[in-house]
């Protein structure tokens, strides 16, 4: 991990020898926050998290403390941890699970105590074999240590934590699809309302769904107080956050930096070592495949959820992909479109049919067999999926996978229309 102006929080133990073992965790201050938390009334923990203004790190950026406060007052309550990370170019939870599983477990038990959950399920993307092994091994150790299970550290609080494997489906990262999957069914998103997890979640019970990175922040927040977290960053974007940097940079990787005080340029040039082979940034994707792209003129924008939102895109899953001046934008947009087409669960017509259509048209253009009318056709079909093609998108589908489909193609069309036309007119790609 690279040093940031603010010391890292969730990745602070990465790189220590065997950081994933209980011994290493305890040697480095592990599970002291949990002891402290169990001596506090549960409401006080929620209050600290509200003060910290910790925003969800899974993609939607909703305040964690507020989410906990919205639980329908009924029992039982469940905690579900979203470790399904599959948004293209996002690879931070994968790293957190493999390198510091105890930190997540500590965060999970703190959260379960705060919301009064007796059982928590950590849904780990099926493909993450090593992460599942490390997490299960850590959990076994945590039980033996008394940090999970019956009467945690003699406090009278009891919680069972389960590592649950997924089986390969992007859509299961969507929280209601994840719940369906956890119930042993196909991962079909549920209609909201009424199926907001806080009201009707797992087995119909009120449920908190939080991302792995979100919960991994809790031990630090309990240790240092919500105000210390809120002192980092600016506005609503508090604390530090992991950004997954990929694409044409010299040093791709995960970098935990202070939010709002760091810019895209800092991340790409300082941390990422700049664009490879001395080339220039042609465009970059600021928040995962679902987000609208930015050009080099936006490099000095702050990594601030609201600033990026106002500029017409999102920080989303914290995945930044850099494309250099030799990149074929038609091909890049096509590949992202192919992804959505493949991962659409098929419940909603505009998403299922629309994604198939635009993928075919994009492929045709990319292969040099496109027609000029295809550009209008693309816009027309996309407008049917997310009417108005605005940001944030209008939603006519059950979940936001559908409305995310236009981002890549519309970015390409708005920023690089010429390149589409060259493909069409010359029947070939200018970049070979």
């Amino acid at each position, binding site marked *: 991990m690279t040093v940031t102006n603010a010391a890292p929080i969730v990745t602070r133990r990465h790189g220590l020898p065997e950081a994933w073992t209980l011994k290493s965790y305890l040697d480095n201050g592990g599970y002291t926050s949990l002891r402290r938390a169990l001596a506090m009334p549960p*409401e006080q923990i929620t*209050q600290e998290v*509200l003060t910290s203004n910790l925003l969800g790190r899974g993609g*939607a950026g*909703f305040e964690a403390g507020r*989410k*906990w406060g*919205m639980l*329908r*007052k009924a029992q*039982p309550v469940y905690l579900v941890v979203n470790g399904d990370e599959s948004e*293209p*170019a996002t*690879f931070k939870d994968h790293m957190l699970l493999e390198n510091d599983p105890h930190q997540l477990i500590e965060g999970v038990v703190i959260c379960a105590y705060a919301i*009064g959950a007796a059982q928590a399920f950590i849904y780990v*993307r*099926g493909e993450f*074999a090593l992460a599942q*092994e490390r997490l*299960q091994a850590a959990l076994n150790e945590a*039980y033996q240590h008394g940090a999970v299970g019956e009467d945690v550290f003699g406090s009278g609080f*009891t919680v*069972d934590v*389960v*590592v*649950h*494997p997924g*089986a390969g*489906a*992007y859509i299961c990262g969507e929280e209601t699809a994840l719940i369906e*999957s956890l*119930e*042993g*069914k196909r*991962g079909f998103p549920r209609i*909201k*309302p009424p199926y*907001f997890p*806080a*009201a*009707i979640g797992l*087995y*119909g019970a009120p449920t908190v769904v939080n991302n792995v990175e979100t919960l991994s922040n809790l031990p630090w927040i309990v240790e240092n107080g919500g105000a210390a977290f809120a002192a980092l960053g600016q506005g609503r974007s508090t604390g530090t956050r992991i950004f997954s940097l*990929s694409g044409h940079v010299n040093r*791709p*990787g995960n970098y935990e930096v202070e939010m709002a005080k760091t810019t895209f340029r800092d991340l790409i040039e300082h941390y990422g070592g700049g664009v490879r082979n001395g080339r220039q940034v042609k465009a970059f994707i600021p928040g995962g495949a679902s987000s609208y792209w930015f050009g080099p003129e936006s490099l000095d924008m702050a990594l601030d959820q609201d600033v990026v*939102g106002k500029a017409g895109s999102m920080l989303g899953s914290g995945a930044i*992909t850099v494309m250099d001046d030799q990149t074929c934008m038609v*091909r*890049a947009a096509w*590949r*992202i479109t192919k*992804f959505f087409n493949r991962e659409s669960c*098929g419940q*909603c017509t505009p998403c299922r049919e629309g994604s198939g259509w635009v993928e075919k048209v994009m492929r045709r253009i990319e292969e040099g067999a496109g027609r000029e009318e295809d550009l209008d056709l693309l816009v027309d079909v996309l407008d049917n999926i997310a*009417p108005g093609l605005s*940001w*944030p998108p209008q*939603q006519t589908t*059950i979940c936001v996978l559908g409305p995310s489909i236009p981002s890549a193609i519309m970015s390409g069309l708005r920023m690089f229309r010429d390149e589409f036309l060259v493909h069409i007119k010359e029947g070939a790609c200018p970049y070979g």
Partner: protein
Amino acid sequence: MRLNAENVQRARDLIAIYPRPRSALIPILHIAQEQDGWLTEDAMEHVAELLGLTSAEVYGTASFYDMLFTEPVGRHLVSICTNIACLLNGGYELLEHAEETLGVKPGGTTPDGEFTLEEVECIADCGRAPCLAVNWRFFGNVTNDDFDTLLGDLRSGALRETVPPHGTLNRVRRDLTAWAGGVPAAQAARQQVEAKWAAAPPPVSSPAPATPPTPPPPPGQAPAIKDDRGERQPASQPASEQAADQAATVEDKGDTAK
């Protein structure tokens, strides 16, 4: 093949962990796939019996997920990512090289049953693009030469420890002694906690959110639901927990992009 005695026991242990047996379905299917390398009809039928489901329900769920195979696969499932970060770093060139070397297209298996090749979506190792996984063990920054070496090592068995046969996912079992008395004790504890809750409301009393704005109604028509790709049922909702009316007032903009 039906599950062997040891795997039946593992399945029973899993069922005991969850509040509802069906939640154990996917974990048990992974066990079946570990046993045979893929999901045979006999295994799915057996899993259905263990969970009190129909074979159709088991198959219907299994077929939704990319990692679960209802057809035979090679001993080594080679999954090459071509999504955006890998595309920018030669993912397609690597895939092409793999096709030529193995002599199969994505989805195909080599005649000796050693390798099945797949083109996959992002596998969350994009910092090391182009990357691939073999039986879900990850390899990053893979050059063509690396790929050839890897195939050799897989063939010779040099990587047997790091890359177990296809279907073997998590080799670390839940420690059943962690709860005094094993899993049944875990259940007992859960029931004890649930009983306590039934008596007194749970300690959730953080400040109520200021009356939240209801999310904007979808413009135009209601969500178009098409069910030709399988059963879509309203989420199961036990009678004791029916609260749709209250739910409608709860705002959780969880996923509304902002």
